[in-house]
C-alpha cells in the first residue's frame, strides 16, 4: 500500500506546475516593473512575497484579484487578514502587493 501511495504522491509531485517566470503556480511573481508601477520598492515587493508565502500560499491557491470586483476583493482581504492574523502593517503591504496584480491582470506569472 505504501508503495502505491508514494507512487501516487510522486506522480503528483511530478505534475507541479510553474509560472512562466519561475514562480510556482501558487506563488506568482510580480515583476520589478509592475511592483514599481504599484508603488512598491524592491524591498517591499520581496517582503510582500515572503509574507504571501507564509500567510496565504501555504493554505490556498492564488486567487487572481482581477477576477473580483473591488468590493468583493476588499471583503475577502478583510476576512483572510483576520483568519491569518495579519498585523495592520502586514495587511496594508499585502493589499498593495495583491493590488498590483489586480491593476495589471496581464502580468506574467498570474496565469
Amino acid at each position, binding site marked *: 500500500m505504501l508503495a502505491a501511495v508514494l507512487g501516487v504522491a510522486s506522480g503528483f509531485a511530478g505534475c*507541479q506546475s510553474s509560472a512562466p517566470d519561475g514562480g510556482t503556480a501558487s506563488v506568482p511573481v510580480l515583476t520589478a516593473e509592475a511592483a514599481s508601477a504599484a508603488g512598491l520598492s524592491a524591498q517591499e515587493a520581496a517582503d510582500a512575497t515572503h509574507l504571501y508565502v507564509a500567510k496565504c500560499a501555504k493554505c490556498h491557491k492564488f486567487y487572481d484579484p482581477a477576477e473580483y470586483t473591488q468590493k468583493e476583493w476588499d471583503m475577502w482581504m478583510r476576512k483572510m487578514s483576520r483568519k491569518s492574523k495579519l498585523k495592520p502593517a502586514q495587511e496594508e503591504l499585502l493589499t498593495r502587493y495583491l493590488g498590483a496584480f489586480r491593476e495589471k491582470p496581464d502580468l506574467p506569472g498570474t496565469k
Partner: protein
Amino acid sequence: MKNKTLNLTLKLTRNIAYAATLALFAAGASANDRLFTYSYEPETMPQGAFEVEQWVTWRALRNSRVGQDNYHRFQFRTELEYGVTDRYTVGLYVNEQYERFRDPGTRRSMDEFCWKGISLENRYMVLNPATSPVGLTLYLEPTYDGIDFELEQKIILGQRHGDWKWAVNLIHATEWEDHFEETEGEVEFTAGLTRMIGKHWALGVEARNHNELPEYREWENSALYVGPVVSYRRENWWATLTVMPQVWGDNFHGPDPDGNRGLELEGHERWNARLIFGFSF
C-alpha cells in the same frame, strides 16, 4: 447496574453538550480546516491563531472468538491548538473513552467510561508546500494518563494541486503501559486524496494501515482500512467525517485468534469512523 448505566449516559451527554457549547462559543471566529481525519496535512496554523477541535472516533465490531461481541468504542478528544509561529503549532488534548461489549463466555455485558489522559501535540513545518514540491511537517505527541505513557511521532507529507489535495503520514508510536511494565510499538501509514467541490465541500478517500508490535519482539497484526472522507467548511468552522471498513487484516502470531481469515478482529474492529469539528478564533 442501572445507576452505572445512568452515570455513563450522563457522561456521554455531558461530552456532547460540551462539544455543542464549544461550537456556540467559537461561532464568530475564523477556521483552519482539515480535509482528512486520520491524516494530517503539512500546513501549520498562522502565528497567534487559536483553534478548538472536538474529535469523536467510533470503532465498532469485533467477534465472539475474541470474547467481544457487539463491540463499540467511542474515543473523545478535545483539543486547543495555538500557532506559536507560522511554522510551529502546539495543541493540548483531553482524552476520554467509552467502551462496551458483551462477553459470550459469561454472557455479561461490559461497559466502561474512562479518562485517557492528556496529550501535547507539537507540529513543525519543515517544508512549506507553497514553495516546495512536497510539504513536510514533523510531529511529536506525548500522552500520559497516570498509568500509561505514549510517545507518537509522525512524518507528514502533502501537497495541493489545483482543487486536489493529498496527504501521507508515516507514524510510529511507543506505548509504555502499566507504569512502564509493558511496552507496545505501533507502526501506521495513513493516506488521503480529496477534491474541493465548490467553496464549502471536499470529497475524497482515506486509507489507514495499522500494525501492532508488542515489546517490539514480534509483528503481531496488521489491518487496512479504506473509505470515503467528506469535509464541509465555513468561514469560522469546519467538520470532516471519515468512515472506513476494514478491507484486509491478519494476525501473524500462532493460531488465528479471531477465526477470520480476511480480517484482524483481536486488536482492530470491522469499522472505524472519525468526526472532527474545528472552530478557530
